[in-house]
């Protein structure tokens, strides 16, 4: 599984990464977490408000920090 966190580097994006890494650790799910800061790449997903979470190419969330419950649901699918 590949989890991409899209964001130009504000505090919310860091928060999003922390939450996802925390849930991965708790659940023991293996995933590659990548932070995408390149604006062109972010927009190629059709995302205009950050932070956004993309899992295996699928935009799960845009414009807010995910909560742990959501992350758990996404990675268990």
């Amino acid at each position, binding site marked *: 599984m590949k989890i991409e966190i899209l964001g130009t580097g*504000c505090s*919310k994006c860091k928060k999003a990464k922390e939450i996802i890494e925390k849930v991965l650790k708790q659940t023991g799910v293996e995933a590659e977490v990548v932070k995408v800061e390149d604006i*062109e790449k972010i*927009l*190629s997903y*059709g995302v205009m408000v950050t932070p956004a979470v993309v899992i295996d*190419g699928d935009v799960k969330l*845009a414009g807010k920090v995910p909560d742990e419950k959501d992350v758990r649901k996404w990675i268990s699918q």
Partner: protein
Amino acid sequence: MVDVFYPLQWIADKMTYEVFGIATDTRLASSVNFVIYDVMKIFVLLAVMIFVVSYIRTYVTPEKTRKFLGGKKGLQYHLLASLLGAVTPFCSCSSVPLFIGFVEAGIPLGVTFSFLITSPLVNEAAVAALWATIGFKATLIYTVSGILLGVIGGYLIGLLKMEKYVADFVYKIKVGDSNKNPKDLSVKERAAAAYECVKDIVEKVWIYVIIGVTLGGIFHGYAPEGILAQYAGEDNLLAVPIAVLIGVPLYSNVMGMIPIVESLIGKGLPVGTALAFLMGVTALSLPEMIILKKVLKNELIAAFVIIVSISITFTGYLFNIIL
């Protein structure tokens, strides 16, 4: 009219005079009463306002706005972009992707700016705090003029035909189609999302509100009456532009600023001058300009700052005349 906030004043009075046992008519009582009343009123209105606007927002996403406004020209689309900006918040780090996304969708530069100007200027948290502190009428005027400011500012930028002052790479970027197909949400899901927003925003701003209200309270209780009417009253025509000049580069949390400004109004600062200052604080800031510099050339940034600052100054004068 029945004051719906009367119970809050009653609680504030009880707390100040009975629980804390502060003698009435002292400076301390005046300050403490101000703080208790303001904190309660701001948080009540904040929660209600954010909930309502966030609920509405579950119907309007930036992606939808972008598709909707693509290729549309004309004053009515400036108004629409401005209204959509008012209900769509974004943190300043999203201004670049939003800007590129809008331009790429064929939304005219001026219409894009109508959205970008209004979005930070009119937001539910600021509106709630203004309503709680300086009253409904002034808040309504602030909101309406904020939306008009976006319309006019964006329209003027459109007239200047400044498309060539957008960084070249912007026109080369291809924006993908968001594969997120939002399913229809139920009322319960929308309410849950709105509740999340209330929690998010209150968690973020409460500390600024407390600091702002405390400083405002001290000023309210201890500064001499009419001190500001003397120096920055309506007779002083320079007061409005100076207030805007101070407000523009200032990057502070507007939630902390509003209660301070309330206490300044209490000491004689004209409401128009105060609102112009707050508009300067919210509409333009140095960090935002630095972020926008990635996509805009200096000429366009200068046009943006000048047009918005001048519009705000005029709005300030107008408020002082009509209020």
